[in-house]
């Protein structure tokens, strides 16, 4: 079997993304896991490039590898959680059951995909050529390389979902502010109560 360059790259990127994912769930140290997660996300972005969805690949790197994983690393280092201890807790019944359920789910998913992916795609491995320009076919926007297609689709067919997504982001922002602020106030009031009731001696950083 002779592999073209693109096919070879597919296998490389698939290995990177799946292997990175495996390394994430197997590593003990959260920082290491986050680094492997970035590797996996970049692998997925490369798969997007192979599928000629260039805009999504850029978004993947910017939003996931850039913003989300930096947030993760920030929180990990803020909480200063070390590596998980090497010792495993005793295999409880719940854990055993959940492991079996997970394996069963994975097996079912794999079998179903292998069984039906051929049906869904009519065994056609040939990819159509990707349009360069934005075009509309009936109610659908045709897949194209141009970013304009995204804008066109988002602001016509998906106008309402776009608004909802914006509102979701606003809600998440407000939620995060409330979550962190309220906790702070409780904490500080507790701290002042503790300080007033328990300790008369000043803390070193206050002195």
């Amino acid at each position, binding site marked *: 079997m002779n*592999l073209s360059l693109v*096919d070879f790259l597919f296998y490389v990127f698939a290995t990177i993304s799946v292997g990175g994912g495996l390394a994430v*769930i197997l590593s003990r140290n959260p920082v290491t896991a986050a680094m492997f997660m970035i590797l996996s996300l970049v692998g997925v972005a490369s798969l997007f490039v192979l599928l000629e969805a260039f805009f999504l690949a850029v978004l993947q790197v910017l939003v996931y590898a850039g913003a989300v994983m930096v947030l993760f690393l920030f929180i990990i280092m803020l909480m200063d959680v070390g590596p998980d201890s090497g010792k495993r807790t005793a295999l409880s019944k719940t854990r055993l059951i959940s492991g079996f359920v997970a394996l069963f789910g994975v097996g079912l998913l794999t079998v179903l995909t292998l069984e039906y992916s051929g049906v869904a795609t009519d065994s056609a491995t040939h990819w*159509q050529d990707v349009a360069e320009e934005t075009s509309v076919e009936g109610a659908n926007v045709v897949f194209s390389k141009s970013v304009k297609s995204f804008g066109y*689709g988002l602001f016509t067919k998906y106008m309402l979902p776009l608004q909802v997504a914006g509102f979701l982001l606003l809600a*998440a922002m407000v939620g995060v502010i409330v979550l962190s602020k309220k906790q702070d106030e409780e904490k500080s009031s507790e701290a002042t109560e503790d300080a007033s009731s328990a300790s008369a001696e000043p803390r070193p950083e206050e002195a």
Partner: protein
Amino acid sequence: MDTIGVQDFLVVAVLLFSVGFLGVVLRRNLLFVLMSLELMLNAVNVALVAFSRHSANMDGSLFVFFIMTVAAAEVSVGLALLVALYKKRQSVFSEHMTMLKN
């Protein structure tokens, strides 16, 4: 792409999803659980883009855009919750999150 079809991308998506699923079910550190959730969302993204490209329809790619939005919101809220829990419990392990018990 001569020998690579949609099926191959689907297999990659299933593998990624399975890895993420196993991470969610088996890890006890909530940071890892959140990361595994991200992995699962990414797997779905791969499948969506592959189908979108195959059927020359932009809908799948636009859906990926929304999934990214939801994932970003989910991570920010999840991490805020995790920090709040950590302040209370000094732990990020799921077995220590028993405030609703009894």
